[in-house]
């Protein structure tokens, strides 16, 4: 072990279910290696809790390598913790001080109700995707993708948008619980490419409508989402969404569809 181990105070949000009131409970956890990841640290906390006959803390995780978007947590007030461009599973204990009190809260947003402890329901993101986060394509009839020339700049931009892992940190970081960074990224990754053109404007309207219907707030252009996003998704994609939606509405108006 390279550095000496950490003794920590963990102030963790405990809540039985969506309807029960939650509260913070503070646990002491000693001898944590600075090389362990944040989630490994929580695993050790849970072992300690199970050993003493208490309920373990529920938290989301899956890949533990920053690609699946399952892990969440607001750590000392910042979704995914203070490390820039990383998920909670990529955060290591060496970023904390010995003796530090770490406050761990669930992502907070009305559309993301707490299921238990630190686990929230991010299903509204699925609803937004189902509203337009896809292209229509007959099975088996897709042409060779390389047959469609796409400029490097455009391809890069679409890839940047597609880097979104749907974790919800943008919503959690936003004081308005706005989902515009997620929706902007998921819309633009398709709207930028030729394959996304046929449904471009229908997609813009349907995804924004789904976003609103699920109770997310309104963007005030303060940029907290971009700063918290583990994939560095840019506010540019919100601007693209704003533009596509405006064009979609104008097109719809002049086509007489209201």
């Amino acid at each position: 072990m390279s550095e000496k181990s950490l003794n920590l105070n963990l102030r963790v949000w405990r809540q039985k279910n969506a309807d029960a009131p939650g509260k913070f409970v503070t646990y002491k956890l000693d001898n944590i290696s600075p090389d362990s990841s944040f989630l490994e640290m929580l695993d050790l906390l849970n072992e300690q809790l199970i050993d003493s006959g208490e309920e373990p803390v529920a938290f989301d995780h899956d890949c533990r390598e920053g690609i699946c978007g399952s892990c969440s947590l607001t750590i000392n007030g910042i979704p995914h913790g203070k490390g820039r461009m990383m998920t909670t599973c990529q955060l290591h204990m060496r970023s904390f001080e010995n003796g530090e009190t770490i406050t761990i809260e669930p992502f907070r947003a009305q559309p993301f109700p707490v299921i238990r402890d630190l686990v929230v329901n991010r299903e509204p993101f699925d609803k937004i995707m189902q509203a337009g986060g896809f292209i229509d394509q007959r099975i088996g009839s897709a042409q060779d993708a390389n047959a469609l020339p796409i400029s490097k700049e455009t391809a890069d931009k679409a890839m940047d948008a597609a880097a979104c892992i749907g974790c919800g940190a943008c919503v959690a970081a936003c004081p308005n619980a706005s989902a515009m960074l997620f929706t902007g990224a998921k819309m633009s990754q398709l709207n930028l490419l030729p394959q996304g053109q046929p449904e471009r404007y229908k997609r813009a309207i349907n995804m924004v409508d789904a976003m609103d219907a699920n109770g997310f707030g309104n963007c005030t252009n303060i940029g907290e989402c971009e700063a918290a996003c583990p994939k560095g998704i840019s506010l540019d994609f919100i601007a693209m969404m704003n533009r596509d939606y405006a064009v979609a509405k104008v097109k719809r108006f002049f086509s007489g569809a209201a």
Partner: protein
Amino acid sequence: MTSLGKKYIMAVSGLILVGFVIGHMAGNLQMFLHPDWINAYAYKLQNLPYGLLWIVRLVLLAAVVAHIVTAMLLVIENRRARPQGYSVDKPIQATFASRTMRYSGVILLAFIVFHILHFTTQHVHPEFRDLYRPLEGVGTIHGAYDLLEATGKNHVHDVYSMVAIGFSAQYWYISLFYVIAMGLLFLHLSHGISSMFQSVGLRNHTWRIRLDRAALVIAIALFVGFASIPVAGLLGILPYQDMVQGVHHMHPPTTP
């Protein structure tokens, strides 16, 4: 109305108001010239043809109402979307200005109401309605002098003295309120002028920093330009300070 619809309304109404404040400030700076300048300017605005004055007023009123009503809807919805905050709550990078738009906005609304009662309807100081003075014909760009001189009735409302007295040391608290309000306008616009481009989708990462800086420059210029007038009035250092009429020897208009 959809979330983005509301953002567009904020941006468009904000743009109208920004355009107005830039023009208003440029007009006000005539307080640093001979009294004829601002008095002839005010005369000209009051006597615009085709009811243009009222058209402009109605557009501004519509913009203010749209801006405030939409702001209230946004604030209510945003509170509802985030009913529970964090126990550790500190922004990662958001500016103070961007997080306090609703508060700077509300105080600006109070300012707008007071300002209209102060210098437009003059309810705050009804005696200001009796301030008149003849144009001296020092030569302004407004052309009011030649027009009025020909009719022999060149007494106009003495806006110059009204503003100078309104900001004089005896009303120091009013000057102070104006300077504070202009500080809040600076805050509001240092975020708003760049934000409105994002809201309508006309911004990207290259233009974001440029627009942020341009917003800062415009907001500073507006603050300095606007605040200079109450400050100069308070200190009694307008270049033509000795031409300010006392409220006690006001001239009645030559024609009622």
